[in-house]
């Protein structure tokens, strides 16, 4: 039982990170119709924003985290202006190749700036653990689950209780109608990219102490976040959360109770099963044509 609790918390912590990356995926896709293939590199940039503020600049925790997320917000805005706006009238293939190319550029920029050696990003909760009935639980893992819960609650408030969030949903549903209604569409689209970048930043900052900060960390995250959105339902926020947690848990529990050699096969196998049997995912959002 103790081992199961340990595995459960670990799976939830990893799943939370996948969920945040998947939410960023979904927000951008819903608003702009673009599948952001640089999403993994967004998370990697978030981790390295933490390296800059926490390790290089040696800022106190709260300031460092705030500064790292501000960097990510700025990065999201820059991405919107320099990548999305020039590409948005291109074909689907152009946009896909564009985001893939930008992801590669981001990875190489990080490699040139930080080198290939990973960094040990500290956690504000350090290496503390709690003992729950014999299960040794990392406080950082608990913190990750807690922060993700708060982020999801914050997003719910944003999208359901604020005019900005409701505007973003309106743009996602029908861009032309939103324009006719006088909404500042470009500003709301930019905000989607900023929000996706900030969510990736949060995921990256939480992931750094668990995985080390590594310029190659983006690809596996993007793959898992992609699987999460397929399983949960492309375009669905609850789907991204459920999908992320499902992938994280299936990875950890599958490795333990089925086979560690086939743990990726389990989550990706389920993803393929969904694509074959229920392509709209658990939450049934219809897959759109764009992106």
């Amino acid at each position, binding site marked *: 039982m103790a081992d199961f609790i340990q595995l459960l918390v670990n799976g939830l912590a990893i799943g939370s990170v996948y969920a945040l990356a998947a939410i960023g995926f979904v927000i951008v896709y819903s608003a702009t119709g673009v599948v952001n293939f640089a999403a993994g590199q967004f998370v990697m940039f978030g981790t390295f924003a933490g390296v800059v503020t926490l390790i290089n600049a040696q800022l106190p925790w709260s300031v460092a985290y705030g500064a790292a997320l501000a960097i990510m917000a700025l990065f999201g805005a820059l991405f919107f202006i320099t990548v999305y706006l020039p590409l948005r009238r291109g074909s689907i293939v152009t946009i896909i190749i564009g985001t893939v190319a930008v992801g590669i550029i981001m990875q190489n920029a990080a490699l040139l700036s930080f080198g*290939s050696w990973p960094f040990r990003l500290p956690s504000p909760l350090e290496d503390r653990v709690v003992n729950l009935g014999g299960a040794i639980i990392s406080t950082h893992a608990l913190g990750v689950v807690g922060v993700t819960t708060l982020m999801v609650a914050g997003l719910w408030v944003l999208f359901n209780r604020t005019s900005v969030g409701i505007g973003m949903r309106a743009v996602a549903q029908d861009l032309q109608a939103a324009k006719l209604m006088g909404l500042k569409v470009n500003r709301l689209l930019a905000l989607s990219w900023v929000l996706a970048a900030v969510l990736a930043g949060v995921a990256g900052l939480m992931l750094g102490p668990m995985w080390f900060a590594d310029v190659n960390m983006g690809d596996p995250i993007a793959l898992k976040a992609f699987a999460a959105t397929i399983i949960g339902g492309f375009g669905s926020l609850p789907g991204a959360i459920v999908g992320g947690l499902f992938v994280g848990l299936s990875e950890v529990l599958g490795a333990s109770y089925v086979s560690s050699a086939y743990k990726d096969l389990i989550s990706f196998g389920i993803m393929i099963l969904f694509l074959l049997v229920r392509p709209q995912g658990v939450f049934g959002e219809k897959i759109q044509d764009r992106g």
Partner: protein
Amino acid sequence: MGFTRKDFLGSMIAATMLSLTGAAHGQQAEPVLIGATVPMTGPLSLTGKQYQNSLTMAEEDINKAGGINGRPIKIVFEDTQASNGTAVNAFVKLAQETKPSFFFLSSYSTQNLAVAPELKKVQVPAMYAGGADAVADGGNEWMFRIRPADSVSAEGMVKAAVDVIKAKKPGILYIQNDFGQGGAQTAAKRLEAAGIPVVGMEAYGQNDKDFSAQLLSLRSKGADTILIFNYPQDGALVLRQAKVLGFKMPLVTSSAALVPAALQLLSPADLEGVWGVTDAFMDASVGGRMKDYVERFKAKFGIDPDPYGLAYYDGAFLMAEGMRKVGTDAKALREWLAAVNGWQGIGHVYSYDAKGNGVRDLAVVKAKAGTKTLELVQPVTLN
């Protein structure tokens, strides 16, 4: 003063002589080209950068010492990244464009296995540090290994588990590739032969970041010691996660988890209860060539050297000695290397067997309590 026909002819003769002398001098100084395929970018670059550095240092040192009978060597590097395809392309590019007299290949066995058929076509001797037994078993007579084979390392880890730790119920965790699978299977066979069968074997993928399931599974199977076959970054992560999961049992890691690239990610607490084998115990305090190498490497590159890089440094000097004695003819050099017996490098004593394995010694080490400084537990030499 006029410029006579005699003066003109004299100056022409002088100019011709000068140009001929220059050409002869230039030919004498023409470098011996060496090709090196190294993972300089991507996830394998953690150790790749180390042996690129050590080969660069070896190139300078060999040239300062007069090169190959007056000719300098020039090492041309190509990046293998983390892919077999890129490794093959890098090798073919060097073979076709640079046409080197000698190759240094990646220390990653999967890349060595991919490149081996191409090397056989080119027929130029090469040194490599990949540990998988499958590489040497492939029977490519042009390949010479410059570090212990995985079976040797695995045997060293078994010795640490059985002789030092007195394990009764060992478990094995391994990275799922040629290196990890080969090492794990060898260790399991050796343990079984010693009357101590493993209680469980768990694997993980090269890009995996969470090992809690595998670690907990081995603990639930009753493992009292875990042998870990890993690369630097995943090795460091495994050791950290084992501590976070509250593991108290001894852990025995393969050499990559204790190279500087991995140690910089660990705290002294992460290394409590951790034993490991390293290819060579790199202790500057022993003095001599080891001290010189360790101190100069650190001064030049700003990081501690690791045993993989040292193997390539030794290999470059072994190659240079062969070239000085028999020249750069590929077949003659291959024959010379195959006959090397008891050549004293800095990290190892090199003697080549019929499969091109040159190293049979390594060291069991452990971090001094409360520090990340490794100390020698026992040297291991295997026949």
